[in-house]
Structures are given as C-alpha cells and as structure tokens.
C-alpha cells in the first residue's frame, strides 16, 4: 500500500483523528510549532489554548475523568513540557488516561543544552506510565497507537510522546494509522483473573460474618458499577467508597456506608474496625485510608481485587489477591458468592450509623463550608459534576456530596494537587457540555491556576465556581491548630476581590456573606448561562471532623466536639 507524503506534524494530527480525538488542550512554542501549523488543517480537532501548560494537563485530566475517554494535552519543549509535569503526576496517581504530546529540540541539538532543551522523557519517567522520544516521522503512528493503548488499558495513566522539531517537519510516507498494537511484549495486562484466586476470595467472602467492601476508582474505570451492586446485594455487604470511588456505588443505597479514612465518617471507620473481612475492589490502599497499617481493620482478612499487580501487598497484605479487571473479577466472583442475609451485621452497621452521624455545623450568620456544599448538593439533586480542589473543602465535598452518578466526582486524590479545580472543571465541562459542572474551590487553590479563567471565558464553558473563601490555607491552618499549638505560619492567602475578578474576566460574580443568601446565589448561578464565580465568605474556625491524625488509627480518631454534646438522634446524617 502506498501512502501520502506527509510531514511529521501531520502524522500526529492523522493519529489524533484516527483515535477519535476531538478536543485537545495545549500551549504552543518553538519546538512544537510545526504541529501547530498543521493542526489548522484538521478542523475536527478543537484545540483549547490554555494560559499555562499545567492548565492544559489538568483540563485533559478533568475531561478524561468525566468522559472516560483519553485526554490529550500539548506543550512545547523545555519549560512547556516541565509545566505539564504536575498534571502528569496528578493523572499518574489517580489513574487517568492521558496522552501528552511535547515538542523537543531538533535531533542534532539533543544533548547540547540547546535553547529550551530539557530531557523530558527523563524528567517524566516517575510521573508517566510510559514515555517515548520519537526519532523518525514514520514511527509516529505506531508510537501514538501504543501511547493511546497504554494510557487507557489496565490501570490507566499518562503516556508522554516527545517529538523533536525536525521530526515534526520530516516528510515521510504515511501509510495509515495502525489498527492493532503489534509489538508491545512488555505490556501484557492481566485482565481476566486466575480462577484459583477467585475461588479463594469467594470462600473468604462466604465465610465472613461481618464483611465490608471498599470500592475504588477501579470500579469506575472498568465500568463495573452494576456488578459491584449485584455482589453487595447478593451477599448483603455494606459498601464504602474511596475518595476516587465516589459514584461507583449509589449513595442513596441502604448498603452505602460513606467515606472512611483520615477524614472519613466515624461510623465508616468503626465499621472497618469491626469487620472480619474487607473486600477491596479497585483501590490501592492509600495511606490516607489505612492510617497505621498494624491497626487497620485489625480483625479482618483482606480480599484485594486490582488490575495492577504492584498494588497487591504494597501497603496492606492481601490474604486473597485477585489480579484482574474489576468487571471480570466481580463477574467471576458472583456465581461463587453465596446469597446471605447478614441481618445481625447490617443492624450493627445501622447502629453505628445512628450513633456517629456526619453533621453540618452552622455558625451564626456566616455560612459554613459544609452548609454551602450541602445546599449545592440539594439544589442540584446530587446530579451535578463536582470538581474540587484540595483541602478542607475537598473533604467536606466528599462527605456531603453524596451521588449515584459514576465519574461525576472529580478530585485530585493521590497527589493532592491544589489548583486542579479550575482547569479540571473546564475540561470536565467541555467533555460534558450538557451537564452542570460545579467547581468547589478553596481560595488558596483557586489562586494557583486562576489564569485559566480567560480560557474558560474564551470557550464559554459554563462552570460554576464556588469559592469557599476563608482567606487561608484552611487545611494547613487546621493542622497548625491541632498539632502545632496554633502557631500559624504562612497561611494567609487573601486574594483579589473575586467578584471584580469575575467581572474582569467577563463572568458573573456573586458574593455571599450571610447564610440566608446561600440558596439564592446558587440558584442564580444555575440560571446563568455562562461561567459564574461565587465568593462564599465562610467561617475560618470550622475544622474537618472526624479526623484520624496521619499515621494513626481509629483509636485516635477525633470527632467533632460539638456533635458529641448533642443528644443522640437530634442531628440527621
């Protein structure tokens, strides 16, 4: 088959087109210029010009998490590429499929400390699943095919393709985009579990009197929500989602518990403390979940379903590991798991739920962050796409924005990247144009990436930003309050007037100082056909409870002192 003579840059565009990519985020620059010249000829690929490469990476991540498709970001060599790195790290930790395309200095200049040269494949090894330095235009289609394949398969993650400027300019024969990945012997994901492992896991589940399921992002990635619910209902097992597993199990289901871990609900942590079997489906046992390993689920055997064999035994020893895709593993387990009632255990779980409720505490006049999130939850019927930053507001959003929609809760869990909330919300909104996207921000994180407001205005992405403004790094302040005797160090983050800022960017800005104005502001934002920034001036002395201090166990869990004073039954969950 003879092909067309095309330039390397066109090879990239042809590849993106063949992968069905219709949206990319990026920033041009010297080395990547040839690609940007050719992309003009491919109108099916909409390029979003972010104001910073970090924004491009986070936007691609938000897009990928909301849609389940591979996100694509583009940057030039050197500074452009390194600016992507925090986004790649975020995607790597949270298993988001990303293909990052970077320019590189010309082949003869590599290694000569050329202008804007950085060893990008070297720099990004620890934050990518794999990366490529492409040294010939004719390799581009194969590399792109492999990059998309690796990014989306098994445990998803970012793959970076580094393209020297002269490779992008090189003319070669384009013979089409490969249909299959033919030569990747080092990438052989185990998608179907070993029957021996499944049998051992099923036996443990059948023998358990007090089992609990921990449901992670692996369920969402494998689209195994239905299978998870079937297993939970058949065997009557309560389900705890991880931060990234929110939406993998309906939040209004009677078997739904709530989040566990450092800022999980007290009752979820107590359920895990008492359980005799913990079935982890598609999560890696993050330290924010397990705390002190020796005291984690002390009475429980562990069944661990994960597609990434390196997640097995990494932080918690698995008595029954099952390596495979969550959907296939659950499907293999289902026929072997016995139908059981487990009434005694479920009534114990309900007792704990009643005794240790998650409460919303109100401060006179000023709204609390929890209250605002609760109202957003109610006024959106739990059906909005939520993107959060990192810190107190993130934990409260996770506690209170209970949902039954898969992939609708988008947050930087593993890396904890502040500033994620602005560009990621844009990416999510552009991927899901018909959904309402709320970005729940802290004032500190918002200021880390607010330059993307210009991009959001350009694209008229109608994101609703709810800034929980306490003029501080709230979570840092909380730690300094609790663990550093209130020695407050470098935490004041007073920013600009966010209402004026909204206006400066051509958006609607609303300020809320009184609790009675919360609802009307949320409704006004919902009714506004365009991006909105609501500046909620929230109480500063509100701490996230419960809290298990880092590296400790449920025995050291601190519940809200205020809740403890309330008579039982007076506060709703």
């Amino acid at each position, binding site marked *: 088959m003879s092909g067309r003579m095309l330039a390397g840059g066109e090879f990239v565009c042809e590849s993106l087109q063949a992968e069905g990519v219709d949206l990319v985020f990026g920033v041009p620059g010297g080395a990547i210029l040839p690609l940007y010249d050719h992309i003009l000829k491919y109108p099916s690929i909409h390029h979003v010009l972010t104001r910073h490469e970090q924004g491009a990476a986070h936007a691609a991540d938000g897009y990928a998490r909301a849609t389940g498709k591979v996100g694509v970001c583009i940057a030039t060599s050197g500074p452009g590429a390194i600016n992507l790195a925090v986004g790649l790290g975020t995607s790597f930790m949270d298993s988001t499929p990303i293909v990052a395309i970077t320019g590189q200095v010309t082949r003869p200049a590599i290694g000569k400390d050329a202008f804007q040269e950085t060893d990008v494949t070297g720099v990004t090894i620890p934050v990518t699943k794999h990366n490529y*330095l492409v040294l010939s235009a004719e390799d581009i289609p194969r590399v792109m095919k492999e990059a998309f394949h690796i990014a989306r398969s098994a445990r998803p993650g970012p793959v970076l393709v580094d393209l020297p400027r002269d490779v992008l300019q090189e003319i070669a024969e384009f013979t089409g985009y490969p249909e299959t990945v033919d030569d990747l012997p080092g990438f052989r994901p185990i998608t179907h579990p070993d029957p021996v492992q499944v049998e051992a896991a099923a036996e443990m589940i059948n023998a358990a009197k007090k089992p609990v399921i921990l449901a992670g992002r692996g369920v969402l990635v494998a689209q195994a929500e239905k299978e998870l619910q079937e297993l939970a209902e058949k065997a009557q097992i309560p389900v705890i989602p991880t931060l990234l597993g929110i939406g993998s199990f309906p939040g209004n289901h009677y078997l739904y518990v709530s989040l566990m871990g450092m800022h999980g609900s007290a009752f979820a942590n107590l359920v895990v403390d008492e359980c005799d079997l913990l079935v982890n489906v598609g999560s890696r046992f993050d330290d924010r979940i397990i705390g002190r390993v020796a005291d984690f689920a002390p009475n429980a055997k562990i069944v661990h379903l994960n597609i990434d064999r390196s997640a097995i035994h990494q932080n918690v020893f698995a008595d029954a590991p099952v390596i495979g895709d969550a959907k296939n593993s659950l499907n293999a387990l289902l026929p072997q798991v016995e139908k059981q009632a487990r009434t005694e255990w479920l009534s114990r779980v309900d007792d704990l739920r009643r005794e240790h409720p998650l409460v919303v505490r109100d401060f006179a006049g000023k709204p609390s962050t929890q209250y605002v999130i609760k109202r957003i939850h109610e006024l959106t019927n739990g059906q909005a796409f939520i993107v959060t930053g990192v810190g107190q507001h993130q934990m409260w959003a996770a506690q209170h924005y209970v949902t039954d929609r898969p992939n609708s809760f988008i947050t930087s869990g593993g890396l904890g990247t502040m500033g994620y909330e602005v560009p990621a919300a844009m990416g999510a909104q552009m991927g899901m144009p018909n959904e309402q996207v709320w970005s729940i921000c802290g004032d500190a994180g918002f200021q880390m990436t607010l330059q993307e407001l210009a991009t959001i205005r350009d694209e008229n992405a109608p994101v609703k930003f709810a800034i929980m403004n306490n003029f501080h790094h709230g979570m840092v302040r909380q730690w300094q309050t609790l663990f550093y005797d209130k020695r407050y160090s470098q935490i004041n983050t007073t920013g600009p007037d966010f209402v004026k800022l909204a206006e400066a960017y051509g958006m609607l800005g609303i300020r809320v100082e009184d609790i009675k104005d919360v609802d009307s502001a949320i409704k006004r934002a919902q009714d506004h056909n365009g991006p909105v920034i609501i500046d909620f001036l929230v109480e500063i002395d509100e701490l996230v409870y419960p809290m298990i201090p880092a590296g400790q166990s449920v025995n050291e869990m601190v519940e809200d002192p205020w809740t403890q004073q309330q008579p039982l039954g007076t506060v709703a969950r």
Partner: protein
Amino acid sequence: MTMRRVISALVHDRPGVLNRVASMFRRRGFNIASLAVGHSERPEFSRMTIVVDNVPESALWQVTSQLWNVVDVVEVMDITDEDYVARETALIKVRATQESRGHIVEILDLFRGAEVVSVSPSTVILEITGPTEQVESLLALLEPFGIIELMRTGLVALTKDEQVPQDGEFRAPALVGARPNRV
C-alpha cells in the same frame, strides 16, 4: 527480616531502558547491590541480572511487580529460590613484590577459574570467575598483600529451567508467589 534477591529480567535493547529500570529501583527505595546487562539470545532484547540487597520480606512482591510495570521490561523472574547458576568476574590489582608474588600465585592455585592476567614489577592483576562466595574468599586471602584496585562485574545468572520458550513467548512472574507475611 531482610534478604538478598536475585532478579533476572529480559528488557528491550533501546536507549534509556537502563535509566527506566534504575529509576524504578531508586524511587521505590530498593537497593541495587549489582546490575549486569548485556545482549541476550534475541537481538532485540538484553538480559539483566539484578541483585537487590536488604529487601524486607514485605516488599518481595513489590520488586518484581514494579519491574513488571516498566513497559520496556518483557520478562521478570525472582530466581533466588529457583535452581540457577550464577557467576561473576573480578579483576584484582594486588601489590606484589618479588618475595610475595610466589605466595599470591600459590593462593590463586587453590581457586578454580582464577589466573594471573598481567604482571608488573610491583603489582599483579588477577582474574577470577565464579560464584560470589568464591570471589569474596579470594579477596579475603589477598587482603594482607594490599588490594590496590578492584573491579567486579556483578552477578550474571541463568535458571536451569529446561522449558524452552517458543518464539514470541515471554514468561510472566508468578501470580501468586512470594507471599510476604502481613506487613
């Protein structure tokens, strides 16, 4: 309890692969005692023998699993508990006067696979190929003469496994294998 593990890996023969492997060991906190790499029986792949020191029992599974996740690595085996042969070569420059040279040669005769490869008026260079223990014991005996320079290749190893993989077939690490005790 920590231990020494011998890992055998088949990797793509491409620029940067050594960096990817070494980077994984470094960032996961595994301590490479020696790493030997060279051409394998297939032109597109190299074989690596990696000796890892001070591996906690709880991390046994991690070492092979993390290596397995490196896309350029196509086969990984922890061969420590397998039936395997292992050799290393050492070049040893020892201080040797006219009086001591004879003693050194006498010692050398006690070892299989050891010989003198170069002589100068004040030094000799010796070569030994054998299991690590044998190299270590020769070094101990030479210590009193004064070891000036030492170069060891690190361990190279092959399993005695008789199964011949078909073309295009690669071995994966055991799914349920090295089961560490509860961490």
